[in-house]
């Protein structure tokens, strides 16, 4: 089960409204390389990992990713605070407003709703871990694109942190993948 701690994984305090950035960031809530996709991917895959190490790693990274979903939503929420309907309209979020008001809803930056077809779980640790490594690399690139577009250091600091976590997760998945490969061949 899960237990809630009343804190984020990394503190977020964005003081400047930025509707465009909120729209871009939405993709890490509900897009193809999103934190939500990551959390559900590893959560689904953990049950069929063949070793103690594998079950623990997939469980623990899935949990961390759920914390990252909360961080992305926090950024979107803070960036939209006080935005007028006119501002939403001028920055391409009026259609989002029609469907969801100011509510958070997992879509990509173009408003395409989240779908579980963004990830796979095939019950084979080698195939699942190969997907996981690719997913971390794609999420890293997405964060780099977001950092390229960001102007406010309050936003950039958080994105640098999240990007770095993708690198750490990639390394842990790779270590497990290589161990499984080695065991298969020896």
């Amino acid at each position, binding site marked *: 089960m899960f*237990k*809630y*701690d*009343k*804190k*984020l*994984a*990394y*503190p*977020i*305090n*964005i*003081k400047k409204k930025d509707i465009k950035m909120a729209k871009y960031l939405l993709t890490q809530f509900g897009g193809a390389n999103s934190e939500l996709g990551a959390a559900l991917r590893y959560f689904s895959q953990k049950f069929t990992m063949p070793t*103690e*190490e594998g079950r*623990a*790693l997939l469980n*623990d*990274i899935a949990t*961390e990713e759920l914390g990252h979903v*909360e961080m992305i*939503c*926090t950024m979107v*929420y*803070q960036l939209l605070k006080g935005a007028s309907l006119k501002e939403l309209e001028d920055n391409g979020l009026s259609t989002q407003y029609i469907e969801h008001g100011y509510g958070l809803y997992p879509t990509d930056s173009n408003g395409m709703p989240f779908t579980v077809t963004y990830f796979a779980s095939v019950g084979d640790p080698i195939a699942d871990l190969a997907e996981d490594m690719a997913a971390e690399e794609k999420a890293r690139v997405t964060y*780099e694109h977001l*950092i390229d577009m960001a102007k406010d*250091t309050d936003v*950039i*600091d958080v994105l*640098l*942190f*999240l*990007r*770095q*976590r993708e*690198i*750490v*997760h990639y*390394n*842990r998945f790779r*270590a*497990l993948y290589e*161990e499984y490969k080695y065991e298969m061949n020896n």
Partner: protein
Amino acid sequence: MLFTTYEDDNEMANEFFNIGNDTSASDILSPKQGLTLGNLFASEYDRYKDYKPREIRVSNEKERLMLSIYELSFAINDLNLKLDVDPNNRTYFNLLKDYAKKLDGLVKDYSNKYGALEVCLDLNNNYSWIKNPWPWEGNSNV
């Protein structure tokens, strides 16, 4: 970025935080450095372009305590993932135990003074869980 090596990134981490040479002991950064970089292990740090992560600033005792909680939680999480794939590493395990003990004290201290961080730590006269702000609300440095 694509072609920077781990050595370059080590140098960057070393220069930024004065952490000395990359021996296995100094590969583990402090919880403060770890949270700032998003990575507890200097040799794994991967810089993006010339962005330099900023240290988180706090302005009062409450925020200082909360920042320490953030830092220790981060370090524990990163040691946790490292130990998942290297469960017999005593260095990591001893550090995890040390940080876990420290974190436990700080979380209890904070919950007692400023409102519960976990619902089971709501031990004073009034129910504080709904009173203290949710972490997504912002308006403070941490």
